[in-house]
């Protein structure tokens, strides 16, 4: 299982929010590229970059993401407000390895079919959920769609896999809820990238035992609850 550090960008800074809510910044670091390099130097095998401004409709940090993708010597997985085929293409053009699509993928199956056909195994569908409902628009709205039904349905497309974020536990440092992750593992054979609430080596162990492909860690590595270097080594 890969342990992947999260870099969430807002107003050009690397931030960590609680439950994805703007204004709850617990971490704010200006030198985003420096942060990315630090994780790379600590042994990261991939970096997970989310443009929160793009997700929330308050701007774009694409230039900064291009700088990161060009600078690092490890793959970059990128997402946040990706809603058009042009945006997907731009991220691949600047050298990103996987592009995460949320809202549009949840609402428009044909879109997922088209872009995953164009970039087989390059697209990750984000399933951001509270209980079994998938959220959209930067976690600001419910989609009315069921997590497991969506996962089963989209599994037949040539996407790389799913990024599951449990919004209820995201950024709270209270641990993960294994139940929805287990249910997802039973609903799809696609790789599952788990995120949200991962707080301890024990959480990572639980995810590995459930067969998660990778685990995205944010708050816990920025606050020192998880020793990132150690985690990467242990779960590699």
């Amino acid at each position, binding site marked *: 299982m890969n342990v992947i550090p999260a870099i969430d960008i807002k107003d050009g800074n690397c931030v960590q929010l609680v439950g994805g809510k703007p204004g709850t910044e617990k971490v704010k670091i200006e030198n985003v590229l420096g942060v990315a390099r630090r994780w790379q130097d600590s042994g990261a*095998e991939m970096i997970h970059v989310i443009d929160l401004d793009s997700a929330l409709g308050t701007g774009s940090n694409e230039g900064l993401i291009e700088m990161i993708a*060009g600078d*690092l*010597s490890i793959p970059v997985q990128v997402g946040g407000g990706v809603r058009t085929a042009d945006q997907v293409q731009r991220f691949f*053009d600047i*050298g990103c390895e996987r592009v995460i699509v949320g809202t549009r993928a949840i609402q428009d199956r044909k879109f997922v079919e088209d872009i995953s056909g164009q970039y087989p*195994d390059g697209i990750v569908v984000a399933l951001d959920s509270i209980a079994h409902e998938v959220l959209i628009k930067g976690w600001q709205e419910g989609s009315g769609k069921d997590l497991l039904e969506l996962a089963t349905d989209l599994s037949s497309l040539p996407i790389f896999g799913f990024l599951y974020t449990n919004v209820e536990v995201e950024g709270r440092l209270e641990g993960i809820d294994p139940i929805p992750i287990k249910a997802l593992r039973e609903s799809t054979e696609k790789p599952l990238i788990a995120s949200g609430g991962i707080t301890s080596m024990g959480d990572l162990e639980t995810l590995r035992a459930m067969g998660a492909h990778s685990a995205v860690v944010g708050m816990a590595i920025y606050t020192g609850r998880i020793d990132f270097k150690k985690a990467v080594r242990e779960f590699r």
Partner: protein
Amino acid sequence: MEVAVADYGVGNLFSISKGLEAAGAKTRIVPDMVALLDADCIVLPGVGAFGAAMGALRPVLPKLRARISSGVPTLGICLGMQLLFDRSEESSGAGLSVLSGEVRRLKIGRIPQMGWNNVEWVEDELFDCVPETSQFYFANSYVCHPAEDIGIATTDYGERFASAVRDDAIVGVQFHPEKSGSPGLKLLSNFISIAEEAQ
């Protein structure tokens, strides 16, 4: 030394240029393949498809083949490694044929292979000082089957395949050193040393 990085017109070449520059080389991205013919050192990057890349190289094909065969240090990465061989199951039409053998589709497991995998190498300058347990980043559906004994590393992905080959200064790697962190950068720097010695 100046390294010419072939730009077949698809994908981002910044990380490979940056990796080579970190290894002490100067790089030049060449969109016109004619420029490969007077290069001191050639890198064929791993972006795009076999047919399209060979289409871009076709106008200079016999001369480029002669240049590489005459000993101009060349590194093929992923697709770039595959181009060095005779042919590929991916597209009809010949490869560069500077190494003999063919390229076949992986048969088992999830294809493409996307992710980090082990590489087991024999002693070779290309892997000098690369820590033994290092993994490298792969993104491929096809692998090379060399007809001659030029393999210097193998990797297991449902089948065991040649993940690095070397014939003097002609080097091919199936993984992406430019995306493999510090072991990858070390390998690029070893390639530059091999290239410098070959001059």
